[in-house]
């Protein structure tokens, strides 16, 4: 019933959900089976344009682009998802505790977060990768930490406005402890903005993950990632444009799906924005 209301008359929600599920299914297929071995080089078949054999053509090493895209989908989606999850976990915990407790604890936390937020997200991620080293977990840690302050601020400001609501006082007046009040009444009511922000962060994370892979600081080659495939395409794009087109389209469509879905979600949960 809730879903019906959400999707009804919302073309962006429908397209967004469709695109996202398409790529999630692609990622699942990539985990089970691919038409060709995504890392197997075949010099005879290099830079082949799309054909019935290789639907999306082959790259400069003769690897099948479709197979690489399917496996890359899994990498990109899981890394983005895990880094958002990591940021959400840290952000909700710190934000809720800080906003609810207030006082010097809150001031201290906010000062540290302000300092972290003074670094551009991608640059901070780069700095962390410089220390932690590239690779899947390096990227997840770097992006997760880079996005934590944003989530924390949103949660904290939600908690601050919730604290003004009388049901928090009501809970305390019933004799509930602070921890109980926080977990039972405060945190669940923060979830709406957190979900909205998490969705838009997923898009940012996907973009940053691709950028890092593009720079060669993500999952190391020969494992395929969308960003890495784009980076490799640079030199060959003028003669074999499909190497640049397909990974780019994959990233764009996933971003489009996330953005459309996220917008619809925000409109639905924050009725202010649709003017009714």
């Amino acid at each position, binding site marked *: 019933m809730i879903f019906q209301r959400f999707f009804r008359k919302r073309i962006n929600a429908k397209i967004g959900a469709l695109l996202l599920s398409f790529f999630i299914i692609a990622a699942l297929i990539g985990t089970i089976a691919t038409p060709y071995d995504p890392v197997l080089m075949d010099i005879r078949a290099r830079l082949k344009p799309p054909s019935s054999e290789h639907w999306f053509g082959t790259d400069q090493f003769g690897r099948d682009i479709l197979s690489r895209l399917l496996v890359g989908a899994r990498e990109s989606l899981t890394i983005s998802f895990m880094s958002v999850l990591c940021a959400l976990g840290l952000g909700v915990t710190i934000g809720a505790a800080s906003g609810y407790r207030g006082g010097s604890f809150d001031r201290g936390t906010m000062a540290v977060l302000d*300092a972290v937020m*003074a*670094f551009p997200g*991608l*640059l901070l991620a780069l700095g962390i990768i410089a220390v932690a080293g590239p690779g899947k977990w390096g990227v997840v840690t770097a992006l997760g930490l880079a996005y934590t302050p944003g989530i924390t601020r949103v949660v904290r400001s939600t908690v601050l406005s919730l604290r003004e609501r009388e049901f928090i006082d009501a809970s305390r007046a019933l004799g509930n402890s602070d921890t109980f009040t926080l977990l039972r009444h405060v945190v669940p009511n923060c979830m709406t903005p957190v979900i909205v922000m998490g969705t838009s962060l997923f898009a940012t994370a996907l973009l940053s993950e691709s950028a890092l892979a593009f*720079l060669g600081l993500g999952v190391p080659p020969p494992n395929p990632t969308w960003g890495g495939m784009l980076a490799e395409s640079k030199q060959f794009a003028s003669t074999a444009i499909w190497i640049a087109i397909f990974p780019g389209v994959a990233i764009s469509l996933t971003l*489009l799906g996330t953005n459309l879905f996220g917008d619809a979600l925000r409109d639905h949960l924050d009725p202010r924005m649709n003017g009714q």
Partner: protein
Amino acid sequence: MLSYSLRRLALALPTLLLAGILVFALMRLVPGDPALMFVGDVDDPEAVIRKRAELGLDRSLIEQFLLWSGSILSGDLGTSVKTGSPVATEIAESFPVTAQIVLIATFLSSIIAIPLGMIAAWKQNSSLDVGIVGFTTFCLSIPSFWMAVILLTMFGVNLGWLPTVGYVSMTENLLEGALYLIMPVTALLFTELATLTRMSRASTIDVLRLDYITHARAKGLGERTVLWKHAFPNAFAPTLTVLGLLLGHLLGGVVVLETMFSLPGMGRLMIGAIFARDYPVVQGVLLFIVMLYVVINLAVDLLYPAFDPRVKL
């Protein structure tokens, strides 16, 4: 005014200090011995110990931090392991390149995005609004580095209209310099345009719903007056804040584009340093960006009262 400025300044100092500590800590977390990196692969334990003493690595962490901040405050950001030149010089050389691109892109996108967002908000839920929002969603979904690849392939290689590699400073040759900037600015423009349009739209929608807008209409004022005189000043203040944040972030965030277009900016400096494990440069760039960010936001805060008289001077 003076008191307000001083208070803002006082609030910015802890951010700088904490960010400094953060960078310091990050650099101490680097696996391996920094002294070893300077000395290189030479098998000379004596040299390593000498270098350690020279770098102050044998002292306590607090002492190290104090020494470190002292030298940074005196403008010494260390020397690059790779080139041997002072980090400060390298940053000073690369910063103008980055600043040019970011400032041009931000300027262009603000003069388009702010009115566009206001119009979308004014005609909320109309087909025009849906179109504008759809356009921003589309822009947000194209990664700038992908657009860079396509632009390079099309205009650089296939059509040969624009130079693909290298950079000429605009101060040396205005026209030629501008040619090198067209593609990076275009690639950056779209996402920035989208972000700012959305921000401008959202804050205008917030303002247009308020009673004083209805009251302005109830006086008989025309829509143009309502929009520009009553909505704009109030909607612009939050947009200004976002603009400040965006500017600060972009200055460090155009890493990928600089690599793509082989521009000798700060982003490329940083990437090169990461690959070369040239930590003094990484540290220098991070510190510089933070300082820049704090200064820009201080400037925005000081401008703020001009748009919102409720902010106490």
